[in-house]
């Protein structure tokens, strides 16, 4: 994918070819290693789980007092928890909270990170210095301790509020990536050339810059979202947030510190099920990022 090909000719038209070339590149990279298609499949599966999963179960999951910490069986593929609730049902219904937080984080990260990164890279000078200092600061202050401390004054009610906070703490990476991308396009004379053609700033940013770095932003957002999902599950696991709903982190916390799942091997599936869900989601995302990395980092492509 060469960006320089945009310069001559009408921008809209070549932009479209560029996008077509990009999708062809995606197809080729996916085909080269079939495992990557599995990655897309896994992530899609989790999306579907979050969207439709809770519909499959009643609002209040049934308890079975005769089967506390039941071993895996046909009726309960991952056994039951300390109340006799099906663990699989817990994982499936809990996915919505987790994924919703991730999506909320994604929206905030994309919006803030892209806007600030573009602003810094496009205007350079004083704007750039100030914005990058703020970004540096945001990246330096350790996120987890700050989240823990923040949890004492902010109760993070619901997945959207949670996503908002995580997004506000996590836009730095995207902003920096967008800025360096903008600067590198600038260095290649890209922006000056577009100016020379009499294109407006809005056109340059909206039609030329953003499309050419959209995949790059997507990759960084994917990483930010993954981080948000983990942070959120982790906060619930540590038990610093009130358990107001079903969530993988709550499951982990109860399994380790509450129910004593670790005292007998029979109850292990209760602990392992949410772990497995996180591992699987990570695998899916790693495979996708690996494919994206190859698309944007030709140097890694090797002969």
């Amino acid at each position, binding site marked *: 994918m060469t960006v320089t090909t945009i310069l001559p000719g009408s921008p809209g038209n070549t932009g479209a070819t560029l996008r077509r070339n990009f999708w062809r590149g995606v197809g080729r990279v996916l085909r080269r290693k079939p495992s990557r298609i599995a990655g897309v499949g896994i992530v899609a599966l989790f999306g579907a789980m979050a969207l439709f999963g809770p519909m499959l179960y009643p609002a209040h999951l049934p308890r079975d007092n005769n089967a506390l910490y039941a071993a895996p069986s046909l009726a309960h593929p991952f056994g039951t928890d300390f109340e006799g609730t099906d663990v699989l049902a817990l994982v499936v219904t809990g996915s919505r909270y987790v994924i919703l937080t991730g999506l909320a984080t994604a929206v905030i990260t994309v919006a803030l990170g892209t806007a600030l990164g573009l602003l810094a890279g496009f205007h350079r000078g004083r704007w750039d210095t100030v914005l990058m200092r703020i970004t540096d600061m945001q990246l330096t202050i350790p996120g987890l301790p700050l989240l823990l401390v923040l949890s*004492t004054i902010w109760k993070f009610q619901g997945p959207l509020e949670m996503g908002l906070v995580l997004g506000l703490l996590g836009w730095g990476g995207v902003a920096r990536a967008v800025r360096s991308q903008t600067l590198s396009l600038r260095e290649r004379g890209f922006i000056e050339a577009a100016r020379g053609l009499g294109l407006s700033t809005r056109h340059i940013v909206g039609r030329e810059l953003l499309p050419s770095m959209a995949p790059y932003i997507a990759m960084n957002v994917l990483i930010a979202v993954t981080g948000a999902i983990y942070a959120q599950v982790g906060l619930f696991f540590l038990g610093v947030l009130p358990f107001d709903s079903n969530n993988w982190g709550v499951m*982990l916390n109860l399994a380790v510190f509450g129910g004593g799942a670790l005292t*007998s091997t029979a109850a292990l599936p209760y602990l392992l099920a949410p*772990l497995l869900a996180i591992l699987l989601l*990570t695998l899916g995302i790693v495979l996708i990022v690996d494919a994206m990395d190859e698309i944007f980092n030709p140097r890694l492509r090797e002969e």
Partner: protein
Amino acid sequence: MKPFAARGGLRVNPMTRRLAGHLARGLVMIWVVTTISFVIIRNIPGNPVLGQYETLIERGMSPDAAERATAALYGFLPTGTLWEQYTGYMKALLHLDLGQSLSTPGTEVVTLIGSATKWTVLPVLGGTLLSFVLGVTLGVYAGIKRSGKLGDLLSISGSLLHGVPQYVIGLLVLAIFTTLWPIFPAGGPVDVEFVPGLNAGYLASLVQHATLPVLTYALASYGGWVLAMKSSVATVLGDDFILAAELRGLSRGVLFRYVARNAILPLFTILALSLGMLFGGAIFIERIFNYPGLGLLLVNSIGTRDYALMGGTFLVTTMAIIVANIAADLFYAVIDPRVRTGGAA
């Protein structure tokens, strides 16, 4: 053209200028972080500082004495304007006074942090160094054999371990080695029946208890090293001077050293940074293995609403990272001749 003029002492030493810049930036960062810390403690719902003050008065203490007692506890005055409270807090910090712990009455926060630090530093330092050596070695291989089966395996496993959150690895390690196959103790830093000191029983117990946290930390950070080294090696292999060295007929050993030394350079910076991160990065591991380091201290202080302790731990954690940032940059300047002499090619 006098390319060697730069070697004279005419200009301000670039290292000095670098150091000054970093110190200035570090100070600003520290100011920002302390302010955040103040704002959070000041805004905790229910205003515990004022609450403590009023409780003391209700118990019959004189307002003056109650004010002093509360100030000793939280590091700032319960009454007065926001500005007075802020300057009071900052002044106390300058004297390294972080207040007193509520959950362990009568103990200075500084003391608690000091004793927790040694439990954090030992296992995390061990885990970091272990994973660094292992990850860098395998990363070189993965970088050179990028299209081979083993190289692929290393990359994917590295990405996976790097991508999975620490607590997932920690919980799996915990489940495997304490429940499924119970060969290691589940928690705590050492068994209580041993007398602390240089005796075999105590040391053995120490090592036994540290094994799982170290293993978890090593597994969690190993992936990052493999990936970083792999991409660094790939970059260096594409550099002109490697081809030049090959065309001069340098031996494989020399070539390997050229690649490895140039590739590992940027990783030392990350190493220094992650050593700074160790103060805050071990929260999950310490919670899972009930290891009494700084991370556990922070989590527990939130659980017990011990705000002075929470603020102090947060400050120390963050400060360590800022200091590590500066140290990393200076360290890089020492090992890279291009930065050292201040010459840009």
